[in-house]
């Protein structure tokens, strides 16, 4: 009886393997093509992030217009889940290419090599070294966000706001990204440096970690108890900005200066209203087209060396 308990799972593992026979598709693009599909996987950070959700819909729409089936995945900010989901479609040859916005780029190093072996092109966020590559290689192109420029912009804009509206002095909350978020260090350090250079009288009194909007709102509300004199917020992303505004509203306080990086529709509306001083907006629509086109180009010519792209960004200000 006990022996049976061990044997049964083993039989199923073997059974699953045995189902394989020789039905395994040859490799990557060829397999996808032979199955009559032009499928591409899109793996963003998480669909719960409005910008990512919007981007995924854009990719699906643009892909359809180009004759491609786009399989959207949802890693939900979990690098392990992202890796597993991508393996499922790349190693089985389900897709002929993949566009990945990696939660933890280093976790995909082995997958990049596998995709190259199977001749499945990838578009990845970041730069080659993030994935253990020495430089640009065939079948892999990169689209990077210039986090330093982004951080510098939000820091400078907040400094300008403090100088213009608060007489050059302010207590500031710094809304930081979660550990492991891509570009965290570059964005935050350049933002702080730019703020210090532009408005030396601005003082960071507390860091608040950004998770989701509600958590930010709770965190900022609590932080306000200890620092009721805060009038400025340096936000790492949309959730940070929106959560902070909610917390200040709930406390009946005015948030005079708020800058952030992201720029979803709600944030842009608040920029227009003047409630957010500036937003450094990533031009995902333009990036989506350039990335998708680069992926299709690599699928057509697997021997071509990949390219390094940069996500265009623009500073949006009230009346600007």
């Amino acid at each position, binding site marked *: 009886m*006990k022996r049976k*308990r*061990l044997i*049964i*799972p083993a039989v*199923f*593992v073997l*059974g*699953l*393997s045995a*189902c*394989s*026979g020789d*039905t*395994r*598709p040859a490799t990557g693009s060829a397999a996808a093509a032979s*199955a009559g599909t032009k*499928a591409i996987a899109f793996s963003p950070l998480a*669909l719960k992030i409005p910008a990512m959700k919007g981007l995924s819909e854009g990719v699906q729409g643009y892909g359809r217009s180009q004759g491609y*089936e786009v*399989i*959207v*995945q*949802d890693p*939900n900010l*979990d*690098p*392990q*889940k992202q*890796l*597993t*989901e991508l*393996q*499922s*479609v790349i*190693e*089985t*040859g*389900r897709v002929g290419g993949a566009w990945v916005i990696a939660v*933890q780029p*280093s*976790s995909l*190093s*082995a997958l990049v090599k596998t995709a190259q072996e199977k001749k499945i092109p990838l578009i990845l966020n970041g730069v080659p070294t993030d994935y*253990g590559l020495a430089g640009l290689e065939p079948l892999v192109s990169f689209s990077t966000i210039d986090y330093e420029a982004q951080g510098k912009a939000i820091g400078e804009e907040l400094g300008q706001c403090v100088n213009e509206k608060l007489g050059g002095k302010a207590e500031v909350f710094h809304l*930081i990204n*979660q*550990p*492991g978020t891509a570009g*965290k*260090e570059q964005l935050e350090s350049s933002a702080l440096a730019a703020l210090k250079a532009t408005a030396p009288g601005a003082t960071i009194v507390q860091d608040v*970690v950004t998770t989701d909007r509600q958590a930010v709102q709770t965190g900022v509300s609590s932080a306000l108890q200890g620092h009721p004199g805060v009038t400025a917020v340096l936000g790492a992303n949309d959730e940070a900005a929106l959560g902070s505004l909610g917390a200040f509203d709930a406390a009946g306080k005015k948030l005079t200066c708020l800058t952030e990086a992201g720029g979803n529709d709600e944030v842009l509306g608040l920029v227009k209203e003047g409630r957010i001083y500036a937003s450094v907006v990533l031009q995902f629509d333009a990036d989506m087209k350039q990335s998708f086109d680069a992926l299709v180009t690599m699928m057509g010519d697997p021997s071509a060396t990949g390219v390094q792209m940069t996500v265009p960004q623009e500073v949006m200000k009230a009346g600007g």
Partner: protein
Amino acid sequence: MTAAVPATEAAVPAGRDMPRAVTLLVFARDRGIFILWGAIILAFSFWCAPYFATLDNAMLVANAAAITAIFAAGVGIGVMTGVLDLSLPGTAAFAACVVGWLMTHGQPTWLSLTVGLLAGAVVGLVNGLIALRGFNPIIVTIGTLSALSGLAAVIAGGYTFPGLRSLQFMGTDRYVGVPAPVYIVAVLFLAGFLFLTRTRDGIRLMAVGGNAEAARRSGIHSERYRVLGFVISGLCAALGGLVSTAVTTEATPEASPGIIFNALTAVALAGVALTGGRGSLPRVLVGALILATIANGLTIRGVQPYWATVLTGVLLLGSLGLERVIQRSVSNRLMATANLSVHSGKA
């Protein structure tokens, strides 16, 4: 008079039939999960042809299930011992960051891994010792989860430990085509299974989970075994954290709540009684494999990601309901059989 005999005889065969029905029900309860997994594999083999039923994909499913299985082993053994350890994600993050810190400070890999695993065992020991003081284990482990997540972030300085490539031997490397985590799971489950079913301590551990007071009255140090349950749970959590780190080559202080959700789902699918004392590690492994198979099939098919969560939840509720129905049915039939035996004068 002659008519009375067939009537009595008719009642006895019906009573004899009862055990067969009970046997079938018990079989469905104990082995149903294997049949369910087989059915899921079969369904996806057709629905996701030609991508699903391949050897490569079988390895992917096994690999994807590995980490959930490790955590589920921790939860499962804990639950069988009467201990629900919710600190697993925190323990995993803490152990990973300890290893990350040691490795980035020049310590050899073997030493770092050993210390990481020990850290998990110590966390389990602390959880157990606190719980023995009469505190609710769920609250204790929630507290530990919070404390450990914070500690992990302190160790990592708010960032992560990237580039831990020397851990790839137990993460992304394959041996004879099989991913390293699959071997780790195989060893863990075999050891756990043998421990729980073939050793005195393992059997006592289960007995304590079933009824701590009865075990105590029969001379077993039930408190010692409850602490052991926590220690094993902590050890499994640390191992899960280290394997996760090895797969991603990055130690992160973020304690993902999804870990405990997936592990508990696998354990519940396996029919492990949350009241303790009953359960089977091989079934827990199949529970984890079912989750991975569903996620893999739906991903290959390109189904909207939300449906995987919906399907998993529905499956869990369905299996819980089915287990309840079967359990009640078994009890009723056994009771009926017992009554029949008493009234017919047959033991």
